[in-house]
């Protein structure tokens, strides 16, 4: 179960503006999905270590040498939506 006010709070955290209708719908959908997860309570995981993924359990090391940047600076700057010179331009933090 998840309440509409919890959805509102989550939306604030993830910086997505939702309409009242969307909040309603999401509370319903997420509630149903979270109910499904309840089945995991049956599983005894008392002495199980979490698995974070990956097929290789080893460190990936590289030579201690200078690594060259892969993306050319120009191309990265080119893909900025708004820029001043070669700097990324953003609106003011405070209005």
């Amino acid at each position, binding site marked *: 179960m998840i309440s509409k006010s919890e959805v509102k709070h989550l939306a604030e955290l*993830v910086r997505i503006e939702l309409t009242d209708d969307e909040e309603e719908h999401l509370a319903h959908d997420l509630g149903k999905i979270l109910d499904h997860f309840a089945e995991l309570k049956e599983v005894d995981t008392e002495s199980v270590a979490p698995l974070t993924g990956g097929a*290789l359990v080893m460190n990936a090391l590289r030579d201690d040498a200078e690594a060259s940047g892969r993306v050319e600076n120009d191309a990265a700057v080119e893909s900025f939506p708004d820029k001043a010179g070669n700097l990324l331009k953003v609106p003011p933090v405070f209005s």
Partner: protein
Amino acid sequence: MDIKNLTIKSLADGFKAKEFSALEVAQEFFKEIDVHDKEIGAYLSLTKDEAFLEAGRADAVRAEGGEVLPLAGVPLAIKDNMLVKGYPATAASHMLEHYTAAYDATVITKLKTEHAVFLGKTNLDEFAMGSSTENSAFHVTKNPHDTSRVAGGSSGGSAAAVAAGLAVAGLGSDTGGSIRQPAALCGVVGMKPTYGAVSRFGLIAMASSLDQIGPFTKTVEDARILFNAIRGKDVHDATTTNFNDAKSDIKKLTIGIPKEYFVEGIDPAVAKGVDEAVQKLKKLGFSFKEISLPHTKYALSVYYIIMPAEVSTNLARFDGIRYARDVKDVKNLKEVYIKNRAHGFGPETRRRVLLGTFVLSSGYYDAYYAKAQKVRRLIKEDFDNAFKEVDVILSPVTPTPAFKIGEKTADPLSMYLSDIFTIPANLAGIPAISIPVKKYTVGSGELPIGFQLMGKHFHEADLFGIGELYEKE
């Protein structure tokens, strides 16, 4: 040129015999796309300049008598969540509608070295989240075998392109079945490599501990060729590695049948198709053994906790600042975030970002995220134990054949259930391939059925070996 039935292998033979040039083949494919893709909707954009450039290079290498690599001149469809420098990479999201890729993904760099020909970027569920390509912000991709049905997803565009003869082969990405499920529904071969076999650099990240890029092809033989071209260690992806192929005596491999995968709810057509595959493999001399993967039933819950958690983190970078900014007239930075993300993300993306943030939030972390990671280990250990008894595991790919467009969009949970047989391989990091039970011809009216083979870590060669014997029979 029998364009519909061209394979990587037959194309190479044709080039060698000078039946056609790479440039001619590329032109034929663009004509074909022009006529038929209106109905299918496999492509989001075409990469014609790039295609003709590489086709020309492939022809030049051949004319000069240079070393011709296996994919030289082969027309490929690329899922639109992989970067090809200078072209769009939308991930089928309004968020990236006006973004141009600044560099090549590692898989693209590798294919360019071979002078493979990219025809275009294919449709997907937004940010690869979905099982039907209905979550694309742009259009729905239709199943070439029945255009009232879905092509599957999330890599539905690449699957449909290969099935409809609008590409010889293609690339997709698979986080919980996004290559294997559409491959099964469209009647083509689709393969998810071992986690770490193929670089994810330049793939727009969905869930980083699960994502892998892999091939869509018409034959298993082709899948092996394309996989070999894109695999290997990459300095830009620390999880990648080089490995030698397993040298198994293919005919002596034992195939396991997990009893938990043959339960109620499987469509009779799927059950019949998978049984047909088993009988054919028995005739080929393979021995079978029933095995148990006891934690299978929890895989869906585990996946739908871990994946959204990683999604919510990965998608934080789409903030309306760096890649594209669609909403103008905002007062301050926070408004840029809120408005652009509301405008840019579709319903399924929002759902998963919110769900992921919820399972990671304090107070719920242990009950959901930490718990799911522990059960993930148990699922992986199920496979470790099974692989002590058998070499390869066979199962269905999907519970049903291609479903109707719109049939599952209202109920997210019913859509999620279509990944139930493909998710465990991603959670365990093992390789898995979807192979059509038989050859399905577009227009025959028959809906394709696939079967899945799962192997040990870095034992892709076992899956290819069995698959190649199967398709030759």
